[in-house]
């Protein structure tokens, strides 16, 4: 298995979403970049949409996770319930390990 395809995170790990500043068919919305969440599940290996969208050859399958956030972590002054959450799929190269506080 190529290094890029090795899952590096486990359920419950704290992760920070990177801001890779990439253009193109990127599936990581701006509002989660730089934010810290926890891995909710490993979804499996999927083709990288940033490559697939352009039909590039030899594209690897890469790990995809669902990341769980507290809404208060995502939005300053979030006006909903204190326990409200959000979950979103993030490809591994957008994730960095984050120390448990």
């Amino acid at each position, binding site marked *: 298995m190529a290094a890029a395809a090795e899952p590096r995170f486990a359920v419950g790990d704290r992760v920070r979403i990177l801001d890779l500043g990439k253009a193109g068919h990127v599936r990581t919305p701006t509002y989660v970049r730089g934010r810290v969440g926890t891995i909710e599940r490993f*979804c499996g290996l999927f083709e990288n949409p940033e490559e697939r969208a352009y039909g590039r050859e030899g594209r690897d399958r890469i790990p995809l996770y669902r990341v769980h956030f507290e809404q208060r972590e995502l939005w300053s002054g979030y*006006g*909903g*319930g204190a326990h*409200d959450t959000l*979950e*979103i799929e993030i490809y591994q190269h957008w994730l960095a390990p984050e120390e448990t506080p």
Partner: protein
Amino acid sequence: MNDTHEHSHAHEHAPSDDDVALSEEEAKFIALKNLLIEKGLITADAIRARMEADARGTPHQGARMVAKAWTDANYKVRLLKDAKSAALELGIPVTEAALVALKNTPRLHNLIVCTLCSCYPRSLLGEPPAWYVSKAYRSRAVREPRNVLAEFGIALPAGTEVRVHDSNADLRYIVLPMRPAGTETLSEQQLADLVTRDCLVGTALPRAPSV
């Protein structure tokens, strides 16, 4: 002929969508499609077949899965483990890579959105409603879900967790709503009739039929 007036009147009001000039985006789309076909990268039949497959999806297929889960605890376990396989058990082929069922509870309400475009389990439910692809829903559902839910007529206690699922990549989602009280005597088919499209997205709650 003496009846020209009647005829010209009818023509003026006939549906005429084919006569409207193409927008720039439509012209681009047709040019790109023709180029892909010309280069042999895709066939006209493959496009047609995909549109046909998408049109097979209906909210009722999702409703059948929910009603089955309400009446069969073992099916519910399988649905929550792998909704794509659970759909196939009912003869519903889901063509998306994976389908995840999200269980509502008295303490948790799930809401689905795709902020980046219009990801939706089309092979199961068909095309999404216009509001689902609107910029207003896509931007507000993640930022102020309770206000959005209130506009759909759902008021949840502050203690209930609202969990938004931004469907942005390879997985697709449906909500498994709670079975409403007062439906104990209903058949599985009658239960399925209570589950509307919006219940499966999280913007409505199934209601017992009024007596």
